[in-house]
């Protein structure tokens, strides 16, 4: 799996076309193919894209909606990008997000009487540690028993979702009310919202801050350096005296902690409790968010917003253009397919180039 990533890089390099151009063309191509899809089903692609755009950026509430949807995606995209840099495919961001959210809900609802400036950091810390440890377990299993992280993370996703599901349905269910959710968190644990009538909370600032911290670690510190070297060439890392086992576990911890923070953001900013199955796949979509920007941690902020926009637009598409929301997810998938396969785009470009030559 790691070699896949390497191959991607090589292809980018080999084609001699700059990453940004490939990226941009991939997006356009995805939209064109998506348009064909709309047409084939009797919808006007122009109307559809217009509706998505209006739904995402067309008005102030729309833009706020985009940012709200983007927030958890940025976290999980960043989480995935961090793991990739250390040479690991963390497909377990969904599970780590659940665990983080659950820890946040518990610490938010059961620790009483501390002021917000203590309570909020405490809740965040709990979520980060919980998500981090959940992921570090994967790293441990990998270095100790050589288990493939893709398989263990997927399995742990099921465990996390079902474990929290059980807890919130039985022992920790809020006795007041029908829904399977935990007791509401105290006000002191809630992240402030920008506007009272919208859900957008300070979680998006936390996401930006997390990105800054990660960028700092990656580009300025020996730990970040060791993560990069380990991810790119394990044997060279070992030769350089880097304790690769430790690095693998730490990388997974950081990745899981970020995913956990994403879960906490939803609990502290939006739902104010842990709701059974609250995530429609925010964690999983992190893979796409990260892939879109070739796993560049800083750029996940923007690809997160793009995916948030598509999600926000989906609702409007349904309302204005009467196109089923599922189509929007087709577009989303197309974007990932085209972006994640530069070879495909490269060969399409080559066809044009050859035609041009003749």
């Amino acid at each position: 799996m790691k070699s896949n990533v390497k191959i991607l890089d090589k292809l980018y390099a080999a084609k001699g076309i700059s990453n940004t151009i490939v990226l941009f063309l991939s997006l356009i191509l995805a939209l064109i193919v998506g348009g064909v899809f709309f047409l084939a089903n009797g919808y006007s692609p122009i109307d559809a894209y217009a509706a998505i755009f209006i739904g995402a950026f067309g008005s102030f509430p729309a833009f706020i909606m985009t940012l709200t949807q983007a927030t958890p995606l940025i976290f999980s995209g960043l989480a995935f990008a961090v793991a990739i840099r250390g040479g690991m495919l963390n497909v377990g961001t969904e599970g780590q997000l659940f665990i983080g959210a659950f820890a946040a809900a518990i610490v938010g609802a059961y620790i009483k009487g501390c002021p917000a400036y203590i309570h909020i950091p405490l809740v965040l810390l709990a979520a980060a540690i919980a998500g981090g440890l959940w992921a570090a377990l994967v790293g441990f299993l990998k270095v100790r028993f050589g288990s493939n992280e893709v398989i263990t993370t997927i399995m742990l996703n099921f465990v996390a979702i079902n474990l929290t599901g059980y807890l919130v349905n039985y022992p920790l269910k809020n006795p007041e009310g029908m829904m399977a959710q935990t007791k509401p968190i105290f006000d002191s644990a809630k992240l402030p919202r920008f506007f009272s009538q919208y859900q957008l909370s300070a979680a998006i600032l936390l996401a930006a801050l997390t990105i800054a911290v990660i960028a700092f670690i990656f580009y300025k510190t020996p730990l970040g350096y060791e993560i990069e070297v380990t991810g790119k060439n394990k044997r060279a890392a070992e030769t350089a005296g880097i304790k690769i086992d430790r690095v693998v576990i730490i990388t997974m911890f950081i990745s899981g902690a970020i995913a956990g923070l994403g879960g906490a953001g939803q609990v502290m900013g939006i739902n104010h409790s842990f709701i059974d199955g609250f995530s429609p796949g925010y964690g999983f979509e992190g893979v796409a968010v990260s892939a879109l920007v070739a796993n560049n941690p800083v750029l996940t902020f923007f690809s997160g917003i793009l995916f948030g926009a598509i999600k926000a637009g989906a609702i409007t598409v349904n309302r204005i253009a009467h196109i089923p929301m599922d189509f929007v997810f087709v577009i989303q998938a197309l974007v990932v397919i085209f972006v994640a396969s530069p070879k495909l785009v490269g060969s399409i470009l080559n066809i044009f180039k050859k035609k041009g030559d003749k």
Partner: protein
Amino acid sequence: MNAVEMHGISKEFPGVKALDNVDFSINKGEIHALLGENGAGKSTLMKVLYGMHQPNMGTISIKGKDVRINSPIEAIKLGIGMVHQHFMLVPVLTIAENIVAGAEPKNGLFFDLHKAISEVDKLAKDVGFTIDPRKKVEELSVGERQRIEILKALYRGVEILILDEPTAVLTPLEVKELFTTLRQLKQKGMSIILITHKLHEIMEVSDKVTVLRDGKTIGTVLPKDTSANELANMMVGREVKMGVKCRSTNVGDKLFEVQNLCLKNGDRFCLKDINLYLRKGEILGIAGVEGNGQTELIEVLTGLRKPDKMCLKIGEHEISNNAGADEFIKSGIGHIPEDRGERGLVLDMSIKNNCILGYHRINRFIKKGIFLNNVIGKYARHLIKTFKIKAVNEEIHVGTLSGGNQQKVIIGRIFAQNPEVVIAAQPTRGVDVGAIEYIHHKMIEFRDEGKAILLISADLDEIKSLSDRIVILYKGCVVAQGVTDDFTDTDLGILMTGGKISNEER
């Protein structure tokens, strides 16, 4: 009519003119050597011919027909095959699978493994290789892997075969075998382009030599009309002294001592009761046919592998058997790994970041836990300058450097850190004669500062010219050791292959 004619080829990379109006041609049934300093553009020229790079200018014709080669696939269709400086095999697949990959025999829709095996078997017999097509590539030695690469090209029916530094990683015996094969292929009418830095090989096997310097053709000559020294002159542009002997004049106390080193792999001893020592101001060479425990010895002495038994001392300080590679580095043991792409460098990372690899936690580069970017950049530029690394700047990926320049990054990185002892494995592998002279000079200078070097090299001439003393390794045991000049070539030959000579105790 020539098999290949390349005319006026120019190729620019961002910031480098790798090829500048180069002409090159080869006949049918000819072995044509390509010679030049590291970074002269040999690999680039051949990658142009193989369709991996598109030239900015120039024409190529194959058997008199003008062509444009857009990809290796097109090159293969035109009968051109290439074996790269770095092998491109899939280790977990079998020999047969590797050879046919991309041109698999099919049984209906499906891959026909039996046919693949029998075809590969026949092909191997035709060129006189003995291989078992069912074996996995990961089990093979470097020399065997290379044959697989050659077979892979032959399987596709190529008539023009490019070999990029094939002998760099081979033992002398394997080189002999390779040359026999090449002569055989030549008899069958193949055109072979051979890149090598070893002048005696060129004199031995090639029909013609073309010399490149700084991306320009210097000229094409016949080996019989020239000499190794003259070739060196042509490629470097100045007089080169090769294989100078320079024995240490000032040997001090013991600096590094290994006692009773044993290493087992399962029940089998890889290394058995090794005792050796290095004194201040000396170079100790390990002579031996590759595969007699050298790799394991290097790994143990650099902390990459835990021995079953050993007592290791550097100065008065004893290094525990559980110490990791980081502790070895900290104790002042520098390591030049035998395979630069595998252990020595992170190819898709900048030169700058590769310059601090292994030393990335030392105080000089860090303040309050944060990298001192300016200091590191300056340090990298200093290495590039001192060690004459041919690079546009320190920010480019080390993988875009030519092979020899990659090696210089490692050499520079180690010697600049001023270790006490250097474990130097194949330090001049793939390096041009000018740079070899320079690296050897560096090693001797280092030795004369009262430091010590353990030199492991497949090149016996290198061992003989640099080492003050020699240890001979055979099947994981030290079979003899002593002062270099006390061994004759015949002695060494006998000892390295497990024979005995009468007065072993010296």
